[in-house]
């Protein structure tokens, strides 16, 4: 790759061709302020905060969108540049509600940070804030366009990264407003509730529907038996809310925090991830050995399920009927555990802590999510909501002791924990599928071909002569190409390109979920991923079928994978959904 030699503020810089001025400046320790730019997205170049001077250019250029050129002389900071940035910032603030104290992003708001850095004390311009009622229609995420700074991130995320096209800009000029395309409500739009818009929003214009009060109320009620589960990806990200490094593994502290908050039992979604592997893995082996519909496609991501039901419902027969780990744990808690604990199902309250906003939608997505007659899971909270609850409870998270989960639905194998990253469900499934097919265990359980941030990963796995072709896609916008290849092969009457496909809607998998602490970049995703794999590596059991509590639950209660009882509690069905409800 050719290198570009240039100068930034008189400092020589040598960077690969194509590097933006913004990144080149970073390389020599110069931080150019920005608002609309996000490293996940192509530069939208809207805000005008990152403007710099380039010798020979009559106008200022946007550092985020301009590739540094050979011999370029860039000035990133001088009184004139800073003054222009300040004016632009003041303009943005003049149309932004001045209510930081009541805003969910206070403290993690990129606009607030800029205002602080520039020492803004008053707005010299006429303040105009358009009052727009927030859209709460999905129950998962809330759109509050009043706070929108029109940075374009959510629209780009929704359209380019996720391929969903639910969000768009409506109107033009100073009437431009963020809204679902065609100006319907978000719930009537194609939105899949993945929450990536909220995860990327620099301000408080899109956020999770905060349901912490429902959980506090349940805990307060003495007749309620409150149990909680935590998803794999939560444990490696929640630390960021307490100033820990991204990827810090906090499982033990989380268990103890949840007990202190007042839950009667603390379970782990990793346990039900193991259960999912037994059900979904058995389903897969059955499809392969008995000639069922292939490829089998994973169903544990509710945003993906929603997408499939809207945009790709020709794949319904390919979908694993296994419920997601969240739902499986809820169903087992309200049946098996309720029986063991002697609690009536109606008195059971199941909360889950998820890295995800779509999980809020999943808890009531259809009747199958209420397999005991009551909702399997009552409320799904995001990682961000739990972090706030911990703070509200006065818990000093970092000095908490490490505790263990309650064993009945809390013990997990390394295969369960890697559900939190892209490729993890596939890797976990392969570890057990190998056993289910060969009745032998793998010498090396690591499937490196499943790992990493590449958008679509493909591999052929040799299970003692049985060749299994797999594909793994994450970041919703990457899935269509995979599906199209399956469709093409089907149309041509050719063999399916893959036997098993894993899909996760968010970049990096659940560790990059829409409910995780703000600020995720690939760097942070990699750190969280490393945290997950370290959890896997230090696990005593690395395969789901070796989890003794899984063996026990089948012996005690379910019988065997895919049994009648398992079907009642742990499986579901799918149906077409209209892309637009109206």
């Amino acid at each position, binding site marked *: 790759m050719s290198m570009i030699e240039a100068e930034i503020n008189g400092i020589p810089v040598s960077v690969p061709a194509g590097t933006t001025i913004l990144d080149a400046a970073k390389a020599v320790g110069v931080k150019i302020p920005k608002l609309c730019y996000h490293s996940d997205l192509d*530069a*939208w*170049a*809207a*805000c*005008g905060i990152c*403007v710099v001077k380039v010798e020979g250019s009559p*106008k*200022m*250029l*946007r550092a985020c*969108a*301009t*590739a540094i050129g050979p011999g370029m002389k860039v000035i990133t900071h001088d009184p004139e540049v800073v003054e*222009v*940035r300040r*004016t*632009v910032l003041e*303009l*943005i603030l*003049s*149309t932004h509600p001045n209510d930081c104290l009541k805003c969910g992003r206070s403290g993690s708001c990129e606009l607030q940070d800029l205002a602080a850095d520039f020492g803004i004390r008053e707005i*010299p*311009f*006429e303040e*105009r804030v358009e009052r727009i009622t927030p859209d709460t229609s999905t129950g998962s995420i809330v759109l509050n366009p009043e706070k929108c*700074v*029109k940075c*374009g991130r959510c629209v780009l995320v929704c359209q380019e990264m996720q391929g969903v096209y639910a969000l*768009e*800009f409506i*109107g*033009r*000029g*100073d*009437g*431009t407003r963020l809204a679902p395309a065609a100006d319907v409500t978000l719930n009537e739009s194609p939105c899949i509730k993945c929450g990536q818009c909220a995860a990327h929003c620099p301000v408080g214009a899109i956020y999770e529907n905060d349901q912490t009060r429902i959980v506090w109320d349940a805990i307060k009620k003495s007749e309620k038996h409150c149990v909680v589960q935590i998803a794999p990806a939560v444990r490696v990200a929640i630390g960021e809310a307490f100033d820990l490094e991204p990827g810090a593994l906090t499982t033990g502290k989380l268990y103890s925090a949840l007990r202190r908050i007042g839950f009667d039992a603390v379970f782990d979604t990793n346990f039900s991830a193991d259960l999912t592997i037994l059900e979904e893995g058995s389903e897969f082996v059955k499809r392969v050995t008995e000639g069922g519909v292939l490829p089998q496609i994973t169903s544990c991501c509710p945003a993906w399920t929603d997408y499939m039901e809207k945009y790709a419902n020709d794949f319904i027969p390919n979908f694993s009927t296994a419920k997601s780990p969240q739902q499986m744990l809820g169903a087992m808690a309200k049946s098996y555990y309720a029986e063991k604990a002697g609690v009536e199902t109606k008195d059971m309250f199941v909360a889950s802590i998820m890295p995800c906003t779509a999980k809020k939608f999943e808890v009531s997505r259809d009747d199958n999510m209420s397999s005991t007659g009551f909702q399997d899971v009552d409320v799904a909270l995001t990682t961000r909501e739990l972090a706030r609850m911990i703070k509200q409870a006065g818990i000093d998270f970092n000095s908490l002791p490490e505790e263990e989960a309650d064993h009945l639905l809390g013990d997990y194998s390394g295969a369960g924990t890697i559900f939190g990253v892209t490729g993890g469900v596939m890797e976990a499934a392969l570890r057990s599928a190998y056993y289910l097919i060969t009745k032998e265990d793998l010498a090396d359980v690591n499937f490196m071909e499943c790992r990493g941030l590449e958008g679509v990963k493909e591999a052929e796995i040799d299970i003692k002569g049985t060749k299994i072709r797999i594909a793994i896609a994450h970041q919703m916008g990457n899935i269509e190409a995979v599906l199209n290849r399956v469709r093409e092969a089907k149309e041509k009457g050719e063999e399916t390109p893959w036997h098993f496909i894993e899909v996760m809607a968010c970049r990096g998998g659940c560790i990059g979920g829409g409910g995780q602490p703000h600020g995720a970049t690939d760097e942070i995703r990699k750190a969280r991923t490393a945290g997950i794999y370290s959890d896997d590596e230090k696990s005593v059991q690395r395969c789901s079928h070796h989890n003794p509590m899984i063996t026990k639950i089948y012996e005690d209660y379910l019988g065997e994978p895919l049994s009648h009882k398992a079907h009642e509690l742990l499986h579901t069905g799918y149906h077409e959904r209209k892309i637009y409800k109206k």
Partner: protein
Amino acid sequence: MAYKNYILVCAGTACESSKGIALYEELEKELKAQGVETEAQLVKTGCFGFCEQGPIVKILPDESFYVKVGPEHAKQIVSEHIIKGRQVTDLLYDKEQAAGSSHDNIAFYQKQQRIVLRNCGVINPEYIDEYIARDGYAALEKVIFEMSADEVIAELKASGLRGRGGAGFPTAIKWGFTKNAESAQKYIVCNADEGDPGAYMDRSTCEGDPHSVLEAMAIAGRTVGANQGFIYIRAEYPLAIERLENAIAQAREYGLLGDNILGSDFSFDVELRLGAGAFVCGEETALLASIEGKRGMPIPRPPFPAVKGLWGKPTVINNVETWANIPMIILKGSAWFSSIGTATTKGTKVFALTGKINNSGLIEVPMGTTLREIIYDIGGGIRGGKKFKAAQTGGPSGGVITEEFLDTPIDYESLQSIGSMMGSGGMIVMDEDDCMIDVTKFYLEFTVDESCGKCAPCRIGGRTNYNILDKISKGQGTVEDLDTLKTLAQAMRKASLCGLGQTAPNPIMSTTHYFEDEYLAHINDHTCPAGKCKKLITYTIVEDKCIGCTACARVCPTSCISGEVKKPHTIDQSKCIKCGQCFEKCKFDAILKG
């Protein structure tokens, strides 16, 4: 087939809208009724430019130049001119015009030089044969069979042609970038999204000479290696669209578009893409986004479209006027073209001359012509003998030019140095009755309305500035507001993403510079010297002069004038909407405006 006479009827939009079509139909009917349809051929032409005097009819071979012709004149024209060979003197613009003498002699045309508009008002734009008869497609033939791509670019470079869309980027360099870009697919785009208020240069060219654009695009396609062109034109130009569509169909039929043009190995086709009329879509990156079916929002440059344009492919994008120059440069040579104009700016410029001027219309002058020549010689001076105040060029992106600069020879650099810009060619002349705050407010309102909303400086800064201007126009402004206007203007110039936002503050910069006194009068004295800003005007009745004729009371739309007959009247200021009708109506100078 030889006709004795040719009756050219202007079918440009301006003439069409003043009953030009009815006139054409009436002439057709009369020719038949009077039995001379084989003696005179009726021709629908493009714009003659002299829109002030439209509809225009020109009869060949006499060159009789009839103006303000209505359908009611059809009978007379046929019976007198066609049958008896006598000019209808009443309809002649120059009553003295002798049969056979060219209308070029009339003042409006004397200082004009028509290169871009060479065929407008001359040929019937609906027939490709008429274009071909005037050397149409000969340049394309030359480029295909006699010139290499490098020779074409060298010729363009020597001609000095610069983009007529506003910024004046050298056309040869643009084409060179695309030619040298490596890509199997390249595109040619014509920007016909003319949107400046009052501008209709490109529209008239498309209406009056559509093939000149098609031929030029094909020349570019041959030169840079593109086989597909798009013309992006606003849907509110139905006649231009119709003529272009018709021209494309005819060119395809003649083998001048499509596969293997003129039997060569060169294939090129053109399609229209209709825009919904957003001003920002005249910005090239927004235009390309719109062609791609996306929301018309600009993206940062570089990379420039010449390297990475439509669907990411190298794309030459020029505006209509630039295109229309190309065939002539190829045919007549760069030496001829570069002999016209100034040191930095060659060729001619088409302007839509409007405002407080006697001869409004579409004009084409050599670069280097002074504003004084345009306004006084071509435009015939200020209407109603009023005093010239300023001329506005460059539309909402431009600035005002005052009396002291009237003798500046017009080119890209000179206009910029006096705080305006060439722009696409709108030229609005203002007199002493025009208020500079009001004019600036008008342009700001336009750019605020047309901002795409993408970048913060333009989206928010534009509105904030407009609101300040509005305050000032109501006498509620402060001296600090003037500073804020300037601060915001600077930030918008420097931090806006595209040309729209970067140039939107130009009217503010220009008027605050040349007319600061007028701003201060609004701010400090709460008066509008031009008497334009309604909130600052009061109409009062001078008791001594009012004879109580009641004329003012009768014309007042809000019935705010009362008084007994033959006794002095009074105006209820709380109800007065400052429409000024009473002022106009009073014959006794009894109403004071101030």
